[in-house]
């Protein structure tokens, strides 16, 4: 069977990449306090660029909106004005903002440095799995004591 989705294979242009890097850097900045890189960290940003295939068109549209809000190019604005522009974008274009939020979060929160900082082992769930407490089954005693609650339909 042939591919059913007509994915855009075009990569972001250099200008688009610069704008996107600026956006994700504002979204999730480097933090000395928590010892984590920002989403504009070279490794993380490269991961984002490689992972936006399904969102390529929406990301491109978002970047055009952002530059329009910047009345030029976002990256040419001073940082405080960039932040104000992105606040307008986030408030006024929720659907497009959520596309970039998702694209950034999908890659940022699998970076080993980030995972270490939130006390997660940098490993896949399988094959080691996880432990989950059984819980206290005696909590069901009041439910049993109340008795049947379904309707008879005979």
């Amino acid at each position, binding site marked *: 069977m042939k591919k*059913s989705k007509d994915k855009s294979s075009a990569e972001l242009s250099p200008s688009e990449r610069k704008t996107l890097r600026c956006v994700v850097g504002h979204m999730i900045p480097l933090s000395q306090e928590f010892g984590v890189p920002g989403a504009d960290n070279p490794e993380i940003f490269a991961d984002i660029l490689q992972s936006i295939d399904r969102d390529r068109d929406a990301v491109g549209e978002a970047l055009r909106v952002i530059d329009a809000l910047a009345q030029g190019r976002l990256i040419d604005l001073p940082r405080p004005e960039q932040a104000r522009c992105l606040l307008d974008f986030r408030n006024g274009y929720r659907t497009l903002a959520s596309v970039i*939020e998702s694209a950034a979060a999908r890659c940022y929160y699998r970076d080993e440095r980030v995972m270490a900082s939130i006390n997660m082992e940098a490993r896949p769930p399988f094959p080691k*799995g*996880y432990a989950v407490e059984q819980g206290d089954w005696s*909590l069901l005693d009041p439910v049993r004591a109340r008795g049947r609650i379904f309707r008879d339909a005979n």
Partner: protein
Amino acid sequence: MTSSLDVEKDTPAMKDPVDVLIIGAGASGAAVAWSLAETKMRIVCLEQGDWTKPSDFPSTGRDWEARTLEDYAISPNRRGLPSDYPVNDDASPIKIANYNGVGGGTVFYAAHFPRLHPSDFRVRSLDGVADDWPVDYHTLEPFYELNDRMMGVSSLAGDPAYPEKKAMMPPIPMGRTGEKFGRAMNQLGWHWWPSDAAILTQEYDGRAACINLGQCGSGCAQGAKGATDVTYWQEALRSRVELRTQCRVSRIETNEAGMATGVFYFDADNNEVFQPAEIVIMACNGIGTPRILLNSASERFPNGLANSSGLVGKNLMLHPYAQMRGHFDETMDGYRGAPICTWSMEFYETDPSRAFLRGYSYQFSRGIGPVRTAITGMDDGLVPWGDGHHAAFRRLFDHSAGMVSICEDLPEEINGVTLDPQRCDSNGIPAAKIDYRLSDNTRRMLDHSVARGIEILKAAGAHTITTKAPLPYAGWHLMGTARMGTDPRRSVVNEWGRSHDVKNLFIVDGSIFVTSGGVNPTSTIQALALYIADQIKSRIYELFD
């Protein structure tokens, strides 16, 4: 001028006839294939997707969360894989979710495995709405039990919300989430119980027990989840049922007698093939089945096959969900363990004091991983962009839990599936188009479930509560579009799944549901498929009368 080569190319290849042809290898197709295998008839199943390899599932990689939003996304439109067909759900507030491959939706489902309740089969008699089913709980009970054994179901006996059910193995862990909500429900005096789950808590039938990967919704790499590729299909293949993958059915052909003669399909190399069959069984879900029936329109059946009632594609029911989540000061289960741990049937049965008829169940669910914590946190306005991002994220991560309500969706003819006049799949077959809207009854039910859910969360000590109703990306349960009944004017198939119009055509998937109930439908879909297979076997000498 047409060359001989063109003629060869344009003429579908003809396969050897088979006794039974099943379309779709998901929850119901697998069950009916397994059940009929003992007849020694020649059985072929055509599946548009392929086998999945457990080693390919997201939980085997570091990108496990991201892939659930990419190639393992629940929306076929988002996945866009070769096995997927587009579904135009622009005109629906609830977006369609499915999986196309061996195992179907069971590859992706959470394996939360409630049965319908006895009252669900008698909604007209009890509550004066919709229609009664032509079968009842008592009739399906042995098939529910058989299906539980085949799928491997863990549970705790004695749930006062159901007639007595046997427990095969201990329930899945309650965890901190189940315990916290259990205490809250006890405080409120409301029903709750460990979920029946098609998840093994001990080794069973050659399959390993659950190790709490937490990724039931994107394929179980451990094989502990009861997906039909690891349950029914293993048995059916050993019984010499033939399963052809990457074969997409375009239409069902009929003869002058109005009987199905077989199906046309496209194979993996895009060749069109005709497969003759004595019996055709559809198991393609509540969207796939009407799509094929409507695409099978002909001079003989101008409104689509099996559609003399005009009800093919109508009465689509999707189970509107409301989601309520809260955050706790202490660490919760997070992303570990089967996502759904307990249920409540407190508001399931009709109560005249409420502003709606019928009811809903709750599923109590554990937390989410870091990616989804960030995405939903930003979407809900709880996690800002900028310097405050990291601290806000850490307040939410591993500290959330909540619930969804599954509201009974009553059948309405204006909700349905038609053929999209513009969109087609990769084989040029018209796509499905969904027109769906919430009824006033459903909206009142959703509102009620949100209000009670907030009460539960507050009783559990949650803060920073968020709600979504309806939950947009939750159109998993596809029901009602080829309903069963005894009256050919008001139903598509009879009380044992045979088309009223085409005497050798059967439907065994969620399309035949008369009403939706307020619980996940998979166990009922499979019990019905087993029941219909049993009817086919017992009526084999008078099957087409």
